């Protein structure tokens, strides 16, 4: 099956810092999504981004499908950004969404 690797596995940030999370995948994909799992375990969809660039407040994401990677940018990080960030890909339409191992982010005040 398709492999999804996220880096770094862990990230510690000082409040206000910027950071970039990376998601590499092993095959062409039809669908890519980024999620944030907060410290209480709730998973929130951040971006649906099979290609191109999107922005939502302090977060933005870029997927370069031809090079099989996606980046999630966090700017001016806040303590509420702490949690685990997952990317998930779908190889073909109607197929299952496969998750990466996640990047665990801790933002310190």
């Amino acid at each position: 099956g398709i492999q999804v690797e996220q880096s770094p596995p862990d990230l510690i940030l000082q409040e206000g810092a910027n950071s970039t999370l990376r998601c590499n995948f092993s095959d062409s994909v039809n669908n890519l999504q980024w999620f944030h799992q907060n410290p209480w375990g709730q998973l929130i969809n951040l971006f649906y981004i099979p290609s191109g660039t999107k922005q939502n407040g302090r977060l933005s994401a870029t997927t370069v499908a031809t090079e099989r990677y996606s980046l999630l940018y966090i700017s001016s990080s806040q303590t509420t950004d702490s949690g685990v960030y997952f990317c998930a890909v779908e190889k073909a339409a109607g197929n299952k969404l496969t998750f990466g191992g996640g990047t665990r982010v801790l933002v310190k005040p």
Partner: protein
Amino acid sequence: GAGVSQSPSNKVTEKGKDVELRCDPISGHTALYWYRQRLGQGLEFLIYFQGNSAPDKSGLPSDRFSAERTGESVSTLTIQRTQQEDSAVYLCASSWAPVSSYNSPLHFGNGTRLTVT
């Protein structure tokens, strides 16, 4: 409701007992997924329902696990003869996908935390 609803939120059961977990997807969402997340780990795919198509059961870890979905509504995940390694959070998600070739964002429920003693 406005979101994906799962029940119970917590379940403690004795080894060897059967459990049934329930998921109510967002109204109108045709695609429904079950995932398992062990403590500190990523999400492990279990099963995927898409409309009236045959479900993708490729992630079910053993024949003790089964899932059903009534039309495009409620889904139940059943674990028979539970084992301690079944302890995990079981997450349900849904998305609007009127045909199998359509993709839309996935929305997760809050999960059922299963503890097998």
